[in-house]
């Protein structure tokens, strides 16, 4: 299974790449039904992530960004496509359908930080148990080594002194502290790739910056690559060097964060940006309005996914398949017939 696709980064720098990744969910399970419908949660998504890079995945709820993230760490098995992971020996390995020991081995290097710090830790286990769990299931080190490593990781994420957190329970910690502990759990095995699924969206505004700063520092220190999933463009701007905008299971625009945010190409990105409030009542900005609301991609018609809501769509968009992600100049990719 050789990965052959339009990989923009040289293979050595690429850590993980999604190639035509799709996930379909059957709408109604029936043993004898033939005409089964599928929700195209993620539909042919491709991107590369370089070592040490942070790629933002932006989009509204239900656009498939979390599913994409889960497929990259194999919490969800893709229906179609490949996930190529640059393993220790420098080969690109397709982890999309790994099983057993190779999958377990992959899990040492790819971790996930979840959205809700209140639900992502078992309330009956101490912070030590929770953070040491990856070491425990991967049988890394003996008890005192694990203890050492967990303590180190806790101080790394700013839970100092670790001794005053190790034997606490999640309910005894604040939201920010819990999220730090959850980050510690993800980092305790020293992974090279972390999917962060809106890690700050459940936190108070006042502690968001702290968590984001921490994640940025850790990425620099440890050379971690993040896939940073968020719906908040300000967060994406702060965290990510590149962003990919998703709509109904498709990436509609991808490029350098500043470029995309300053000068969006795709009408959906424009609409997203115009929905961000500007803290200046006098600011003059052209509003971009889109019709309707996000739909569910059940057996989508072979046309542009954004057709129903697009302000600039015409007959061509209706009659032709969803446009491919094309270079629109300056390394910017967008999927639009009109742009």
């Amino acid at each position, binding site marked *: 299974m050789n990965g052959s696709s339009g990989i923009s980064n040289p293979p050595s720098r690429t850590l993980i790449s999604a190639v035509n990744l799709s996930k379909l969910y059957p709408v109604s399970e029936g043993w004898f039904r033939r005409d089964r419908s599928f929700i195209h949660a993620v539909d042919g998504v491709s991107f590369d992530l370089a070592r040490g890079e942070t790629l933002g995945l932006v989009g509204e709820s239900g656009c498939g960004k979390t599913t994409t993230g889960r497929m990259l760490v194999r919490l969800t098995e893709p229906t179609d496509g490949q996930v190529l992971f640059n393993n220790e020996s420098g080969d690109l390995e397709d982890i999309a359908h790994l099983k057993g020991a190779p999958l377990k081995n992959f899990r*040492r290097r790819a971790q*996930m930080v979840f959205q809700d710090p209140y639900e992502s830790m078992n309330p009956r286990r*101490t912070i030590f148990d929770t953070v040491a769990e990856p070491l425990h299931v991967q049988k890394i080190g003996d*008890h005192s080594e694990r203890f050492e490593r967990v303590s180190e990781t806790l101080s790394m994420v700013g839970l100092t*002194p670790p001794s005053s957190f190790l034997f606490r329970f999640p309910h005894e910690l604040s939201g920010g502290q819990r999220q730090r502990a959850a980050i510690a759990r993800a980092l305790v095995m020293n992974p090279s790739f972390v999917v962060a699924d809106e890690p700050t969206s459940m936190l108070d505004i006042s502690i968001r910056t702290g968590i984001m700063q921490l994640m940025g520092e850790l990425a620099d220190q440890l050379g971690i690559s993040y896939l940073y999933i968020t719906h908040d463009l300000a967060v994406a701007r702060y965290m990510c060097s590149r962003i990919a905008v998703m709509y109904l299971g498709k990436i509609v625009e991808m490029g350098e964060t500043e470029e995309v945010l300053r000068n969006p190409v795709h009408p959906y990105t424009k609409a997203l940006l115009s929905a961000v409030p500007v803290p200046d009542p006098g600011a003059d900005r052209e509003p971009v309005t889109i019709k309707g609301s996000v739909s569910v991609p059940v057996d989508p018609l072979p046309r542009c996914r954004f057709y129903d809501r697009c302000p600039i769509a015409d007959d061509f968009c209706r009659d032709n398949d969803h446009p491919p992600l094309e270079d629109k100049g300056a390394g910017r990719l967008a999927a639009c017939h009109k742009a």
Partner: protein
Amino acid sequence: MSTVNTQHAAPTGLWRARLRLASQSLRESWQLFARTRIGIIGLTIIGLYALLALAHPILMNTVWEPRTYDPVVGYAFDETQQPAPPSLKHLLGTDPLGRDILSQLMFSARSEFLLGLLAATVTVVIGTAVGAIAAYFGGWVDTLLMRLADIMIMMPAISVLIVLSALIGVEHFELALIIGILSGFGATGVVLKSQALSVVVKPYIDAARAAGGGHFHIILIHIVPNLLPLSFLYMMFTVTSAIFSEAVLSFLGLLDVRMSWGLMIHTTESAGYLLQVTDFWWLIFPASLSITLLCSAFYLVGRSLDEVVNPRLRSR
């Protein structure tokens, strides 16, 4: 500084923390439990019967002469007529065969407890396993276990037990196993599965999978501990149904046991005293009241635990 003697601090600190959680949640649960008066009433009744059960072997070895007071083969030679009404020597009188009723009552209490607890343990072990496995794996495993549960629920327990005891000799141990299996694969399993369903969707299950944890690890470390409070609650309800089933079966003479509360009523019935309650009350009331009291005691404790486990039921 804090990592000077981690080698020893690690295990002891961990156990101290776990103990702290256990004692803290126990204390909180007890406070909630104590607030519900019915739970305390139930616990008191259970305590009294436990004392009776424990006192029997002591009495038999000290005060009571086995020839007279043995619950099965004893005979009250000091009474001229059987059944004899309560007297100082026989506080609850004697049965039609001349055996001391208080001794029978106390002797049976022990086996009722053993039966109830064994049945409850079997139920909870099976029910927790079924619930966790069905909820975690889903798919055909779930379908298989839940259809099996349907069969178990539909099965009329008492009639099945009647057939079984006719086919094979059923004693307390077998009875406990049968009740445990019927309830564990049946209703208790279904209830625990519904609870487990709310656990398997938690992100910490995903986190455990992302860490590389296998099915066994996730079920044992993450799902089962979160089912235990509810499991414990259903233990109480199983005890009630076990004691009740035992009473019915031994009243019908279908159990192969030496002595039990149901058997005491059976003896009364077969000697023809069952319908003469006013004249021979001591033949019927001690045993039937004990069955009623102990069953309701466990039920009350269960109800009260329900309030501890289900915050929505708490009355403030």
